[in-house]
């Protein structure tokens, strides 16, 4: 098994620079959820020079639209959505302090370049293992865009949230390296 590394938000550049693709990380602290619709609004705010609904400096964004919570539970099932749909928006957020993105599937070259420039990382969590993943979410509250339903921005408090480093700060990409290793 790859190294297991504990990370805490807000994330620090020196901690992220130590990460290598394939490392398993356990993330603790506040994480913000956002999918396509919320990303569009966030980037509009950045472009207008307005304040974002959360502090993006050192923040981690999780690309997820959870299912509704049962009574007494903080959240429903909460696995990642496909990340490439956020590619048009991510560089603008990385430029203003976003340090980690969590999702599934590969990112495009512009996002990877932006991660190198901004010393940020992309973490892959496991699509379709959404009940297991939800166990590491301790609390969940909507902080913006309630009208978007499942796509509203939520502030999650997570404890040892499991993910794999898919893109590190050096521009390495597990989706290329992994495939090359096992292609026959």
């Amino acid at each position: 098994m790859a190294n297991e590394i504990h990370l805490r938000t807000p994330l620090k550049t020196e901690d992220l620079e130590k990460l290598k693709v394939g490392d398993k990380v356990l993330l603790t602290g506040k994480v913000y959820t956002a999918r396509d619709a919320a990303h569009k609004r966030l980037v509009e705010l950045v472009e207008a020079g307005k304040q974002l609904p959360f502090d993006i400096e050192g923040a981690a964004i999780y690309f997820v639209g959870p299912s509704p919570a049962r009574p007494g539970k903080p959240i429903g099932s909460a696995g990642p959505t496909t990340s490439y749909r956020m590619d048009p928006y991510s560089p603008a957020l990385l430029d203003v302090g976003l340090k980690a993105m969590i999702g599934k599937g590969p990112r495009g070259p512009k996002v990877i370049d932006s991660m190198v420039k901004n010393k940020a990382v992309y973490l892959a969590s496991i699509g379709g293992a959404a009940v297991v993943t939800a166990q590491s979410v301790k609390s969940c509250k909507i902080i913006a865009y309630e009208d978007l339903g499942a796509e509203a921005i939520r502030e999650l408090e997570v404890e040892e949230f499991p993910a794999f480093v898919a893109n590190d700060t050096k521009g390495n990409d597990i989706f290329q390296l992994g495939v090359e290793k096992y292609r026959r």
Partner: protein
Amino acid sequence: MKEINVSEIIPVVRKLCIDTNYYASEDVVIKIKEFLEKEVSPTGRDILQLILENHKMAAEELMPMCQDTGVAVVFVELGQDVHLVGGDFYEAINEGVRQGYVDGYLRKSIVEDPVIERKNTRDNTPAIIYTDIVPGDSLKITVAAKGGGAENMSEVKMMKAADGIEGVKDFVVDRIKRSGGNPCPPVVVGVGIGGSFEQCALLAKKSLLRPITEKNPDPVWAAVEEEILERINKLGIGPQGLGGRTTALAVSILQMPCHIASMPVAVNVNCHCHRHESVVIE
């Protein structure tokens, strides 16, 4: 002539929506275990084990296996000797979907206008409904909960007869290669061949309803499926695209006659949750 009151259909569809999201089907569990034995990537093995653990936990906690609980695609086989009474049949199906997604704590993932407003309908309706009239006096309803991530990796190609069977194989393998980690591999690959532009896409979706532990009944097509599956699993994509040998669990093909000028081929990709459940009302 047998009468079925459409109000009977509502609780049936409600339960199908919930059950297919909470409980992994047996054929998927068997196939994942089979591929876990053969997987050489440590990360890939980790992920396959996690998926099996997730199946158990979802059933215990009464939670959907995946937060994307899909669009409800409803396949109806209506016996021609059945008379539906008591209201609008399609509205009854939609009411069942509405109740299933609300009462079952499933995610509502449907937007009213696909481009401009994209406002959520808040109850996961409307369902996508296909009806076939068949002999007999029973009513079969199948609900497939189709996730967006895998659906987005699907494609229709109007191929030439000259492309032949090798062209078909290359297209399917290339479609999965280009999908990489996006559709939540290991995937199930549905292929529709023949018919027309729209019919081959529907064939591809229907092909996903065959249990993945079963071979194609036609040995010629069974061999084609096997060859495509082998080629896909040599791509190296692996579970979640992080590298490995388990990229697809199965390939399923349905074909039908087509025009002399045409050879339509559709690939409909499904994620490893591979959710569908049926009930026959007699």
